[in-house]
């Protein structure tokens, strides 16, 4: 990928490293995520996807290297502009759908009551759960909880949305619905960073980074990554294996 100006990038990681004790989760990782696209972080469990997302949202600090999020060196400075959907649905079971979403609207600083009510309704309608808005979260199915979790992440209309394995445990129909939601968000100019270990998700992304052992081993559009294998019928899975074995990025091959 060609070097973009800092203004066009939602995330720019330069040689960042993070270790949990002796276990290096992210190692000299370089990544540039342009604004307004869906960007997939693909890799097996333990590849460093969740750690990278937690670094970007400011839950962790890089131990070396530099990381800029929305042009800021400290992600905490732009926390209001970031939406985060963790791997677990992370909802308050006793509270209803609307109360959960309203709580996150409050902590993300939407203090005007009318404005908040409007954005809460919009977020819940967006995920198609308005009819269930009064249901306590603990009484919802797993897929519904994921949808409420997405509504909590988007209620403050963030320009950058980080979704950690958002489609895990969803049935195929709901997965399609989620991707429709994600496409709608990118159409509105939101930058989406989605971690996943399934190639099905990868195919939907505008750009992808393959991660392995805490580093980016390849980055490009799904088409570029498939073509880099030199096989016309190559799938993204083939492309992933190709880069794992050869560890060359399509940008190196061009």
């Amino acid at each position, binding site marked *: 990928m060609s070097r973009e100006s800092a203004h066009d990038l939602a995330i720019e990681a330069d040689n960042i490293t993070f270790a*949990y004790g002796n276990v290096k989760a992210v190692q000299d990782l370089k990544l540039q995520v342009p604004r307004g696209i869906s960007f997939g972080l693909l890799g097996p469990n333990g590849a460093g996807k969740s750690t990278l997302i*937690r670094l970007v*949202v*400011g*839950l*962790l600090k890089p131990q070396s290297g530099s990381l800029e999020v929305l042009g800021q060196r400290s992600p*905490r400075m732009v*926390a*209001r502009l*970031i939406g*985060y959907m*963790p*791997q*677990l*649905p*992370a*909802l*308050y*079971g*006793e*509270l209803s759908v609307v*109360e959960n979403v309203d*709580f*996150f609207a*409050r*902590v*993300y*600083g939407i*203090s005007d009551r009318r404005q908040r009510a409007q954005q809460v309704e919009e977020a819940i309608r967006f995920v198609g759960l308005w009819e269930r808005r009064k249901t*306590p979260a603990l009484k919802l199915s797993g897929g519904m909880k994921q949808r409420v979790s997405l509504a*909590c992440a988007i209620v403050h209309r963030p320009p950058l949305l980080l979704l950690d394995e958002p489609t895990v445990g969803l049935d195929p129909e709901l997965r399609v619905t989620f991707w429709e939601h994600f496409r709608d968000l990118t159409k509105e100019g939101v930058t989406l960073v989605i971690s996943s270990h399934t190639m099905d998700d990868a195919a939907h992304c505008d750009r992808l980074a393959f991660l392995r052992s805490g580093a980016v081993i390849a980055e490009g559009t799904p088409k570029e990554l498939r073509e880099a294998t030199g096989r016309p019928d190559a799938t993204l899975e083939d492309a992933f294996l190709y880069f794992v074995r050869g560890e060359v990025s399509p940008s190196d091959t061009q």
Partner: protein
Amino acid sequence: MTLNNVVAITRRIIYQLIRDRRTMALIVFVPMVVMTLIRLSLPEGSTLDYVAPALLGTLALFFVFLLTGISFLRERSQGTMERLMASPVSRIDIVLGYLFGFSLFAVAQSLIILLFTIFVLQVQYQGALWQIFVFLIIITVMALNLGIFASTFARTEFQVVQFIPLVIIPQVLLGGVFWPVEQMPTYLQYIAKVLPLTYAVDGLKGIMLEGETLLGVGLDLGVLVAFAAALTVLGAVALHRRAAG
């Protein structure tokens, strides 16, 4: 610190607890059952008068520690804490939000224990009732912060329960609940001096048995306030370390 964030977290905790009817019922009835059992277990002719101050302090510490410790840990284990930490709220907002949210229930619980002990179990006391209650509030706030702080070191609810023998029982044994601190070996008296329950029991005994005022037990009160403040800061620091780890 942002007031709006603290209010949002406090409000959410109050809603959550009110919805959990069984927990609400337990908060109200368990202390009454325990105090009644203690009263019934006393030998014929004895009264609760002398032990009541120590029991009130101990029960406030025990119930509040358990309530906050487990609730706070649950928030971490279900991932909501991480989500909250990724939002613009600060760590001190979270700890204060929890403190105020739980205070409402913990203070209500302390009031129930106090009123039940005095009016139903007929315990005689010297000082003013409202001063006993104010002192109990300070103990409750300290215990809330102790629960939050301790829970940041646990990964499961089972581990929080294991903190009871570690954090609560030594305080009960050394804090003047069963026998006066002055009668213990010197080195244990030094240990007792760094345990908040020692000051809680001493202050409550001062008001209830000797008719002291809040000013008269000012040193105990001051030490408990200092413990509460220090634990609030430590809780916020430890929270960051644990949520990130």
